[in-house]
């Protein structure tokens, strides 16, 4: 499937050694599935967790980056002589610095620009960097650098990018590849068959990731060996980029990312700032810390592109979908990405005749990056509102209408079976838990406060898989060390890993140590993005634990002189099934004592071939709109999620509520605003670019996991959750607003200003 554009692995997924034989499926669990506080909670609440932004090394310098203030400009000259003389300044680098002029990559072998590009294609492009004794001295020095720019005409609006006279952002023009088209069946015939058709154009805002920890790194050299602390979602991908950029073997580049303050997709790519820090650390012979100011994070570290989507949907009067036409337009920003949104439209419902078309353009704006379910919340905003509108026209209850059109097989290629699909359960049991039917009946139409309820469904397309390697070590006292490369970006990775080992080996959670996210000392893992860490890495954790267990049983069998098949591990003892008198405590296994440690290595098995392994969700909400002020209050939210087996119910709930919160921002609050005269972002801070606060979300959230282990997919039966949690949210709110007011809001975010205008128009019509 080429739809997995956002979390791309080039070429075929590598084969990993098969686990000898696969772990048994858990029938009952005592640890997995419970509500387990995090294994690193102490560090996170006490202040002892060292985030990359907290790293402070002896003799360390502080870096800062000078950025182009124009949307489109050529750098004609740079004069750094004044800056170099400023107090505390130790290094100033530009494109003219030896070793600093290099190609800049997005993926392997595909250079898309230069580290310092003299052709600045958007506001915020990097022009120079400095390192000084203090951050304020570095900032002072930036102001002393004199740059002569040639301002160029720019284009910042998607719909103007393809005009014949639009200034070209890239040499080949502003169309980023031919529009990608997907066709199934005969769309014209499908619409001819339809009794009811709806068609509308929907718009979604450009959303900024805005993780609370700014982007940045600390770089330190020991001779030709580089150590980098980076706020990243994947240390191994940073290692690879840095080794290429600096011409070092990967073994000379160590990247550490133990704690990191959120990413949401923005911290998958390597930042130019990391290379600047490394270059300046090499020039000065001193460690350099370079973190971006919040304003820069808003402008240059990625976004969810704005999209314009037109959807036409037809159904027979019995409620069967017959045809769909879907077009989507979005912008990369100035460099290559993919602003497509159509995947969910193509596959969520059974529809024999469809045509989708995605167009991505270049504009003189900051480059987009994958953001929590790239393309999917945008698609849901249009598709799920169109489904509700169609249901209303057909006079079918909207949840029933969705249930009626669920596919039996994924409509990928000629139909691929699911390993599991509990979307119907999400809709049905979600509606039941929410009190959907009763809530739909109760609708005050008098007074200034109007209530409404809405629902929306979703799936997520990227599901994880190999490669992943994990090592579990059991020490002679029975305590355990888990060694895995995955980053814990706040999702609770370390905690479920400990829970899986605790389940399998019967070790208490507090006797388990975790080391992770360090390219020098932990096992290779892909980046934590795409909701794939659980399904990619949890089976490897389990396999490693099973490997340890097998060895323990073999050693115990030698010692007890019984067959290994007769033994089982129970409460830290190896016991004979046939003769319970024959047993030995794990810590009394002689060979363990002699060896000091038992080591198990686990690998991620390949995914089943020809099967679709997606997670699913349905979300429900109730809103209250003040028709005098246009203010909208979220009354309550419920997320019903099929993410396979629930590993940790406590963090599962938190993830669902967090995804809903981000979706609330997308649907109600957030929007990047660009100045039309200068092309600059005017709300590049948390005051002007609002993200939800505790007062903006509902006071009541409920999470309903369907908890259906998918063992055909992988050995733990768990699927991803991070992205599914945010896809349906805004669409559910849109549907609730329509239910409350009889107004279909097509342009997100639903602000009070927009609602007041629409209410005014509604009154005028009446």
């Amino acid at each position, binding site marked *: 499937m080429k739809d997995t554009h956002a979390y791309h692995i080039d070429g075929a997924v590598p084969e990993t050694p098969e686990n000898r034989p696969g772990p048994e499926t858990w029938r009952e669990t005592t640890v997995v599935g419970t509500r387990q506080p995090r294994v690193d909670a102490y560090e996170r609440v006490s202040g002892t967790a060292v985030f990359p932004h907290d790293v402070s090394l002896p003799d360390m310098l502080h870096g800062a980056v000078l950025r182009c203030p124009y949307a489109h400009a050529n750098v004609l000259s740079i004069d750094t002589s004044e800056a170099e003389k400023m107090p505390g300044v130790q290094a100033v680098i530009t494109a003219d610095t030896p070793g600093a002029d290099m190609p800049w990559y997005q993926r392997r072998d595909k250079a898309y620009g230069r580290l310092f590009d003299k052709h600045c294609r958007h506001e915020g492009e990097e022009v120079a960097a400095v390192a000084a004794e203090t951050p304020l001295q570095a900032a002072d020095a930036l102001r002393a650098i004199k740059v002569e720019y040639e301002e160029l005409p720019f284009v910042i609006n998607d719909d103007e990018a393809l005009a014949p006279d639009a200034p070209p952002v890239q040499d080949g023009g502003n169309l980023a590849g031919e529009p990608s088209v997907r066709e199934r069946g005969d769309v014209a015939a499908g619409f001819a068959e339809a009794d009811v058709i709806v068609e509308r154009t929907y718009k979604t805002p450009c959303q900024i990731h805005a993780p609370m920890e700014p982007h940045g790194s600390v770089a330190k050299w020991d001779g030709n060996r580089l150590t980098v602390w980076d706020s990243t979602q994947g240390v191994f991908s940073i290692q690879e980029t840095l080794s290429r950029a600096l011409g070092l073997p990967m073994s000379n580049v160590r990247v550490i990312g133990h704690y990191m*303050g959120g990413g949401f997709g923005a911290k998958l790519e390597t930042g130019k700032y990391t290379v600047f820090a490394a270059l300046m650390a090499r020039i000065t012979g001193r460690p350099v810390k370079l973190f971006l100011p919040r304003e820069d994070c808003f402008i240059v570290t990625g976004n969810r592109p704005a999209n314009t989507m037109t959807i036409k949907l037809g159904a027979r009067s019995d409620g069967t979908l017959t045809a769909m036409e879907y077009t989507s337009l979005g912008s990369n920003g100035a460099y290559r990405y993919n602003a497509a949104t159509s995947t969910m439209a193509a596959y969520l419902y059974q529809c024999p005749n469809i045509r989708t078309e995605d167009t991505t353009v270049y504009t003189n704006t900051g480059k987009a990056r994958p953001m929590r379910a790239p393309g999917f919340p945008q698609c849901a905003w249009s598709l799920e509102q169109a489904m509700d509108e169609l249901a209303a026209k057909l006079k079918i209850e909207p949840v029933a209408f969705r249930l009626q059109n669920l596919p039996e097989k994924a409509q990928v290629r000629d139909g691929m079976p699911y390993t599991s699909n509990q979307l119907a359960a999400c809709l049905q049991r979600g509606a039941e838990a929410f009190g959907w039917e009763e809530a739909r009946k109760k609708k005050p139409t008098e007074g200034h406060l109007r209530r409404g309820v809405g629902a929306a469904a979703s799936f997520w397309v990227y599901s994880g898989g190999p490669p992943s390697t994990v090592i579990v070590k059991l020490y002679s006292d029975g305590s355990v060390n888990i060694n895995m490369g995955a980053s814990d970006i706040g999702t609770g990775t370390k905690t479920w890993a400990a829970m899986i080992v605790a389940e399998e080996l019967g070790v208490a959670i507090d006797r388990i140590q975790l080391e992770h996210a360090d390219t020098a000392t932990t096992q290779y893992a892909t980046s934590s993005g795409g909701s794939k860490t659980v399904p990619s890495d949890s089976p490897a954790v389990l396999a490693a634990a099973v490997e340890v267990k097998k060895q323990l049983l073999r050693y115990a069998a030698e010692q007890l002189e019984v067959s290994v098949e007769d033994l089982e591990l129970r409460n830290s003892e190896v016991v004979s099934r046939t003769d319970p008198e024959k047993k030995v405590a794990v810590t009394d296994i002689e060979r363990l004592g002699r060896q000091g440690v038992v080591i198990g290595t686990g690998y991620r098995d390949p995914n089943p071939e020809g099967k679709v392994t997606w997670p699913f969700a349905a979300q429900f909400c109730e809103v209250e709109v003040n028709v005098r002020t246009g203010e909208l209050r979220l009354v309550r939210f419920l997320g019903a999620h099929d993410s396979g087996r629930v590993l940790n119910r406590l963090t599962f709930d938190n993830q669902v509520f967090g995804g809903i919160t981000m979706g609330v921002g997308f649907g109600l609050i957030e929007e990047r605003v660009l100045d039309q005269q200068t092309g600059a972002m005017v709300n590049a801070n948390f005051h002007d670019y609002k993200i939800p606060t505790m007062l903006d979300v509902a006071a009541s959230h409920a999470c309903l996991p369907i908890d259906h282990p998918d063992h055909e997919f992988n050995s733990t039966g768990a699927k991803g959750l991070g992205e599914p949690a945010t896809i349906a949210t805004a669409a559910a709110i849109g549907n609730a607003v329509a239910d409350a007011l009889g107004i279909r809001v097509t342009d997100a975010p639903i602000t009070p200003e927009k609602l007041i205008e629409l209410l005014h128009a509604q009154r005028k019509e009446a």
Partner: protein
Amino acid sequence: MGTNRKGPGEPTKGVTRRGFIGSVSAGAVAAATGVARRGEAVPEITAPGEMVQVALTINGRVHRLLVEPRWTLLFVLRERLAITGTKAGCERGECGSCTVLLDDQPRYACMMLALEAEGAEITTVEGLLDGEELGEVQRAFVEHDGFQCGYCTPGQIMAAEGLLRANSNPSTYEIRHGMSGNLCRCGAYQHIANAVEGAAGIKKAGGK
């Protein structure tokens, strides 16, 4: 320094503008306010990089150090004293990641010069620990999973601590209102609210 010592019954938090101007040089004034008021004697100008003395009481311990007048309390905590529990999120008073208590009130450490904090009891997230034991609010955040990535968490915890010191029995609305100055992009708000409620309970039960 010593211009902002608290008199009996005097509700000062930080310094008065006049006392502040009298106590430090214009470099700091310019950094703090941007302009010097007309009619006031213009003090000697501090060159960039010139240091002044300050004594900061942080988590019960007095730190005497030299600072540039323009350094914020946040900068001094993190970069000069390596007390890094307090996080930098925006450094412009918008996100709340750097919330500390000044006396018992939650304040954004990025919006205050280090000089202004002299004379106050500064409490950071580390100051809630009793040895290696977590404080009540910290324990409640663990139990209720009141965080995800953990970056905004010290600020959330200090906001909650300040809220509960001022109001030991907050309503749901008071919790939502009291915590709304602290952003959490992971969106752990529901669990944070649960944790604050839980912390109120633990405090009421005398820390049990």
